[in-house]
């Protein structure tokens, strides 16, 4: 069966450290993968997109890797801040129908 899995437990880290979130998938062949941030009571907000032929993408303090052999993406936030506390969702893009399939998300808490 097709699955997309993210760390089910919340990730608690100290301010200034690097947060690493994981997204694993099975039985999908996504053209690319996206990461979104969701704050409580709000809709998701797009952060980064990485294509299947890209190994790594960076945007300011964010870094995403995409390993199509392992069927895994890692999302890193360096020099984390309390304002980074949120739920982070990964999503696979399926070309048929231009649809996204979302993981359940990982809650990140950054403590000062």
């Amino acid at each position, binding site marked *: 069966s097709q699955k*997309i899995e993210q760390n089910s437990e919340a990730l608690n880290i100290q301010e200034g450290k690097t947060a690493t979130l994981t997204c694993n998938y099975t039985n999908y062949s996504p053209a690319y993968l*996206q990461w979104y941030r969701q704050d409580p*009571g*709000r*809709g*998701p*907000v*797009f952060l980064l*997109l990485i294509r299947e032929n890209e190994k790594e993408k960076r945007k300011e303090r964010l870094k995403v890797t995409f390993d199509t052999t392992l069927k895994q993406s890692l999302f890193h936030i360096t020099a984390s801040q309390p304002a980074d506390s949120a739920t982070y*969702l990964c999503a696979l*893009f399926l*070309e048929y*129908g*231009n*649809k*996204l*399939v*979302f*993981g*359940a*998300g990982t809650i990140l808490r950054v403590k000062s």
Partner: protein
Amino acid sequence: NAGVTQTPKFRILKIGQSMTLQCTQDMNHNYMYWYRQDPGMGLKLIYYSVGAGITDKGEVPNGYNVSRSTTEDFPLRLELAAPSQTSVYFCASTSQGFEQFFGPGTRLTVL
């Protein structure tokens, strides 16, 4: 640009009632989507549209209907509401299937 707007923000329905969740985008996007999000769960696709006049089912379409008569509007209709439809509903749009822009959501409770 207002982006993606949704109304209402909150609604309580009784079992068997019907309602329409409104979604409007002002970015001239062709693709629009309706998702539901249950606590601790990811977003599940209900219906989507690749352009005016074209709609298709997503992962969880039962109990819902949609229409897309204009590029801007994509209403979601709930007929005969059931407690299982208690959820937060998000509408989203995109131009080329890349970054999706989400509305603020509608929190629906069916009692």
